[in-house]
């Protein structure tokens, strides 16, 4: 099956696969030798995985005892065969951890055409705005320029335990226009607040619970970057 898959690959794809695997092959090498090199490298990976097996205990993964060469299968057809766009203008944001949110967006064909036709347009950008607790907008925000063919971004957020809203905007003629706006995305707390616990009994119980190993004791914000107002003012 593997050799059949190799046969179905073009020379270019075969070399691309070798390159992806970190193999340094001379240009123009015969297909049969490229194939041998790739199979040899895969076998080497398998051996390494087995010989280093004593220390790591990948329990979740062990449940799924898949084929050793599955990485290779994944290399062969990398792109999902689903639609890239659903022809709608939207943005969605998902909290990942205290410091990062993931946003993806899409533009409807009509919007894309309008952008292409608009001579003054100077590009898309994301505006990240921290929300006040009562859900009103704080004046601070920052902007992230994105390319027309981008459709997702991991956003590093300045403060944990806060809520943000992400807008997809387009800039033009000194002003910007909102194309889509996410719902509020709440990122979690990174650490205990300074002075949150003063009771000695509670401190002792937290310590017994493993507080020190969790790396959540009160600390200065790990990412102290302040939100700066973007250059674009409405």
């Amino acid at each position, binding site marked *: 099956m593997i050799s059949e898959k190799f046969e179905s690959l073009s020379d270019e794809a075969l070399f691309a696969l070798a390159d992806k695997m970190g193999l340094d092959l001379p240009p123009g090498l015969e297909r049969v030798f490229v194939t041998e090199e790739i199979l040899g490298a895969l076998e080497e990976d398998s051996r390494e995985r087995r010989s280093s097996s004593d220390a790591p205990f*990948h329990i979740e993964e062990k449940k799924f*005892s898949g084929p050793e060469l599955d990485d290779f299968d994944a290399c062969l057809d990398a792109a999902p065969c689903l639609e890239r766009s659903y022809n709608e203008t939207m943005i969605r944001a*998902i909290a*990942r951890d205290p410091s990062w949110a993931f946003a993806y967006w899409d533009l409807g064909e009509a919007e894309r055409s309008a952008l292409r036709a608009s001579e003054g347009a100077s590009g898309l950008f994301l505006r990240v705005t921290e929300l006040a607790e009562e859900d009103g907008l704080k004046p601070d925000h920052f902007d992230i320029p994105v390319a027309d063919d981008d459709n997702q971004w991991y956003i590093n957020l300045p403060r944990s335990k806060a809520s943000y809203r992400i807008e997809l905007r387009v800039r033009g003629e000194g002003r910007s226009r909102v194309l889509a706006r996410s719902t509020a995305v709440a990122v979690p707390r990174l650490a205990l607040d300074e002075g949150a616990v003063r009771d000695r009994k509670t401190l002792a119980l937290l310590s017994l619970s493993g507080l020190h190993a969790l790396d959540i004791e009160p600390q200065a914000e790990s990412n102290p970057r302040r939100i700066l107002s973007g250059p674009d003012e409405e």
Partner: protein
Amino acid sequence: MHKGYLALVLNAHLPFVRQPEYPRFLEERWLFEACAETYLPLLRVFRRLEADGVPWKLTLSLSPTLCAMLADSLLGERFLAYLDSQAELAAKEVGRVGADPVFGPLARMYAELYRQDREDFEEYYGRDILGAFDYFYKKGRLEIITSAATHGFLPIFRESVEAVSAQIETALVAHRRAFGKHPAGFWFPNLGWYPGLDEVLRAYNIQYGIVTTRGALLGDPTPRAGSFAPVQTPAGLTMFIRDAAATEAVWAESSGYPADAAYRDFYRDIGFDLPLDYVGPYVGDGPTRIYTGFKYWAVTGHTDQKRPYDPELAAAKAGEHAAAFLADRLSSSKEASALLDRPALMVCPYDAELFGHCWFEGPLWIESLFRQAAAGSASELKLVTLGEYLRLFPENQVSTPEFSSWGSGGYAEVWLDGANDWIYRHVFKAIDRMVELAERFPDETGLRERILNQAAREVLLAMGSDWALLMRAGKSSSFARKQVEDAIADFNRIYEMLCSNTVHTEWVTRLEKRNNLFPEINYRIFRKKR
């Protein structure tokens, strides 16, 4: 007087991997290996404990996809075929190494394992593993709880209350169908929790869940008892807190019990050591090497020279580790109880498949744990199920745990990563469209209702967290990607059929037969929550 309470919790789960269109399918082995090496051996442990009158208590989450597969007759047939194939390989192995004083007994041990599995499954349980667990549920030894329908990582879907509710409601219906009861507890897949989930769960009369120590300690306000007592959210959901030290003892990659040099090595397997034409017929006839389950070597430690596996030495070590685990918990509970107004509780949740499949001696460790807890100084620790504890101590400090999970990093990094983030664009779109369909067609009957129900199944399948995990781990990632793509593509085809008012009955019927989980699903679970 008890110095503390100990609650062992196992989460048994596998994604839906039924592939009826293929005579044999590699990923179905996940189920067969878990049945042969974890579920059936655990049931034998329970039977031995019962026979010896040992009091034991365990909370067990059986996920809805696992329940669907354990109840499936085709997979039951295939499991028997797997056991027969393993028995045949065992016989070959006995022929190959039977005369060897070291490896011969090990080959015979495997022959006995698969013989016993077959006898239990076919004759003792009548192919009904769920019924076997239900027996101990009804006896009050096991408390069986449920989890999200397809193990969706719920914090990622928090924006869609319809999707989260659909995961929960489908699970509850499946649980009642399997066990005839409403579960008291709910296992958050991967312990993935977010503030607000409690309101959804309380609306379905769920009483409790489990969170990580990190999530609980970062809660608002900070729990006064640390992890030694549950908290209760403002919505009234009791949140048990994972004991970090107990987790580390069993779960830690390099220092946990399963990494001890005496135990059987998981990775060194004849599937990789013997010629492919010898093992090939038992691993699916493919060109790739996979684990066969026949392993002859001990973990050994940091050396190239592996030591042969010694079952007696390993069993003795499992007993020692059970004693050490109980001694450590007793010591912690004494220290914590002195600071509390009630005996400390230690909640120890693990993946069930760790025991037996990954850690071969795991079931023996559990058996030894229960036996030792019932005798000697360890009897100062009382074993409880989570429901029992809640009946004893219904009042708990009000606190809302922070968004958290047991994945690497403690939040959502595992399920939202460069390797898998592409899925959410499609899955959220399918959710939005499913909500739209449920609103547009609230009163369908007959064929159109069947089609809508299948659409709901496909959306739930696409939400499964295992696919994202596998993509990130690079294991069976092409299979995982295909599961998401197929579910989304099938859903989109149904959506287009319904929007254009055309129906391909034959295709839908085929899809129903293929993805036949949740027979009682009602697509209206996706209606907007008002």
